[in-house]
């Protein structure tokens, strides 16, 4: 039987790698949004990136304007910001280090390499362009996911995947919610150029531009982007995809360990609700409210998982 501490560290390893990866994607998307937007929409883009990572208050405390360079710095290399890529990788590596014996050499090396981007001698990260930096981080986290894929199909991998699925659900929900916060500049119309750029950027953040084209034969429509990112099971980063992944991994864990309980019940209930959900209804009754409830539910599921596997 796996140590409870090991299970907890693996789960958090999964979460922090996913969080670092997401932060990298967010920075990349924001750079794009900033570049495409007429001023001062660029600032709004950076502001919203901070909101997605819940770090706008912390940044505001530094009394620097919401311009590209300081915000990008804050979101990437600044370890005083717990949501920065560097901080997430630090936490991921700490967890990986605590459970090295549960990881393959490849998986550990991948994490350590990602961490070294920020902590190598001479700290090259501080001198790298944000785009080059997020590219490097994304490449290393992809390497980690690849290494996980080749680990034994046992509890260790499933706890990592469980953490990743829970984190990813949270990230996607928060990303979608940005549109709620990201107001259109005055004079811009819904479905106008800026609005369109914003939706495209959301798709790019979760690598879903091509998926969109495959699934929908219309040009870019906000309600279809919402449909794709909420209820489409084909997309691994959609809310539905994450919810399904959570159920799958919990089932695998239950079969192997004999541990099933509240977390499984919650996850399954969530899945069947998701199967009944129509994105049209979500939009009509309020996307922001829906996402807020989803994020809260995700947190409750996290707590049930921690209890079920005796974390902490």
């Amino acid at each position, binding site marked *: *039987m*796996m*140590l*409870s*501490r*090991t*299970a907890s560290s693996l789960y958090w390893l999964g979460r922090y790698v996913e969080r670092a990866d997401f932060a990298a994607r967010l920075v990349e998307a924001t750079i794009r949004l900033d570049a495409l937007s007429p001023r001062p929409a660029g600032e709004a883009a950076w502001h919203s990136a901070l909101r997605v990572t819940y770090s706008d208050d912390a940044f505001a405390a530094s009394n620097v304007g919401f311009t590209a360079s300081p915000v990008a710095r804050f979101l990437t290399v600044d370890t005083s910001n717990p949501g920065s890529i560097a901080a997430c990788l630090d936490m991921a590596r*700490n967890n990986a*280090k*605590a459970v*090295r*014996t549960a990881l393959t*050499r490849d998986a*550990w*090396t991948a994490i*350590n*390499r990602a961490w*070294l981007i920020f*902590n*190598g001698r001479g700290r090259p990260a501080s001198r790298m362009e944000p785009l080059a930096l997020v590219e490097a981080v994304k490449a290393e986290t992809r390497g980690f996911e690849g290494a996980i894929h080749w680990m034994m199909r046992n*509890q260790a991998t499933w706890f990592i995947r469980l953490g990743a699925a829970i984190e990813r659900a949270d990230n996607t929900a928060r990303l979608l919610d940005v549109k709620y916060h990201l107001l259109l500049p005055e004079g811009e119309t819904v479905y106008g150029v800026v609005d369109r750029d914003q939706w495209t950027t959301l798709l790019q953040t979760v690598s879903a531009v091509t998926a969109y084209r495959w699934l929908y034969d219309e040009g870019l429509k906000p309600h279809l982007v919402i449909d794709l990112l909420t209820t489409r099971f084909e997309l691994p980063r959609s809310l539905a995809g994450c919810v399904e992944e959570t159920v799958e991994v919990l089932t695998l864990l239950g079969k192997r*360990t*004999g*541990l099933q309980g509240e977390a499984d019940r919650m996850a399954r209930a969530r899945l069947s609700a998701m199967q009944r959900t129509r994105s049209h209804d979500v939009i009509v009754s309020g996307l922001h409210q829906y996402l807020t409830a989803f994020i809260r539910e995700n947190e409750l599921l996290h707590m049930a998982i921690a209890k079920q*596997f*005796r974390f902490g």
Partner: protein
Amino acid sequence: MISGGAFDEIWGQGGPGAARPEFAALARWLHETPHAEFDRRLEAAEVTFRQLGITFAVYGDVDAGERIIPFDIVPRVFTAPEWDRLSEGLIQRVEAINAFLTDIYGAQEIVKAGVLPPELIFQNPQFRPEIAGIRPPHDVWAHICGIDCVRTGPDEFFVLEDNARTPSGVSYMLENREAMIRLCPELFREFRVAAVDSYPDMLLATMRSVAPRGAGQSPVCVVLTPGHYNSAYYEHSFLADSMGVELVEAADLLVDDDIVWMRTIGGRVKVDVIYRRIDDDYLDPLVFKPDSLLGVPGLIAAYRAGNVAIINAPGNGIADDKAIYSYMPEIVRFYSGQDAKLPNVQTFRCREPDALRYVLDHLDELVVKLVDGSGGYGMLVGPTASKAEIEAFRTALMAAPERYIAQPTLALSTVPTVTAQGLAPRHVDFRPFVLTGSDGVKVVPGGLTRVALKEGSLVVNSSQGGGTKDSFVLMRDASRQQSQSQSQSQGTGK
């Protein structure tokens, strides 16, 4: 300072050019490999070590964070006869250490016989009265010993220090070998080098062999670490990983009704054998340091009840204490009836007035060590010390002479080492690892060679800027010919 006239492991006494006959091929390799090529391979090794995170933390050195121990590419090589002689001495010594621990926490015959002064045992902070009367499972105390050896000439091997508590370095022995196989495959074609990678299997077999009798067919073995901020954490995780056992922290364990359990996702699992990498003081707050948060309350009671084996046994510190070390020849003779096959370095016990007088008069020639110091801390290297350092030590010595021993600075052997100016001799020591299970004592054919990277320096500790080398133990020529003829016959059969 000393490297000039010292015995070199490869060149012998002759100096570069004329190698010891066994090492002609190695000498050729050293001469023919361009310096830039050595540099390139060393860089590759460093990148690998860093990516693998083979690091150690230096205490009190916050800025340094995690460091990698410098690795040198030129191996230190033992011939088969050299190794045989060394192993015999090591086995004899470790058997004596084990007999000594059994005795000192039991009948105390050696004290009654007047071989050791009683105060040296009973007033020694490393003696644990809490342990007296406990018999560890199968009467094995010193399961894993690292015996630090030095060499000063063709046949002059000495033991510098015994480590019978939690000797480190085995992960470097194994990782250095991996690095050498990747970086210098040609050396392994030239030499038949004994494999070291059986060590984890041997260690696990040793652990299982000393499981308490009630443990059943497959005893649950674990490695206990203080956690991932410990300087040797890499080694702890490496060992647990390569043995396929759980790496636990104290908080993962609990003792209930004198049984040790670990907390798993499925509830409690009984633990039979603990390879602990934390010191006695932090093992069990109910018995040792009460304010320690690291320990497992009740662990010693479970041990006393015979329900768990602890590796190495609590209380072992008395056997590798530097004051006891000076009596090791007498200890070996007392328990084995034979002279020690591996001599000690001459040691002055400053607690003895005559010795103290001599030491104070010759501070600039001697190495003075704290009896309970380790890792190069609390140490004076007379010949390289400043006047002020010597005077500070003199004051400390006079205040508490019993805390110190002194040894002459030996002309430690050298091994050619890659430096900015090309190959140059650097002093080395050697830590072989000796395993004792219920089925006897074994020496792994290899060990950790530590090298002082500064010219002339004798200080090899990693915390003091030392590096490491791979240590080749050559197999006998017979086996080489045999394996060659085997591969030849396989070749013709195709």
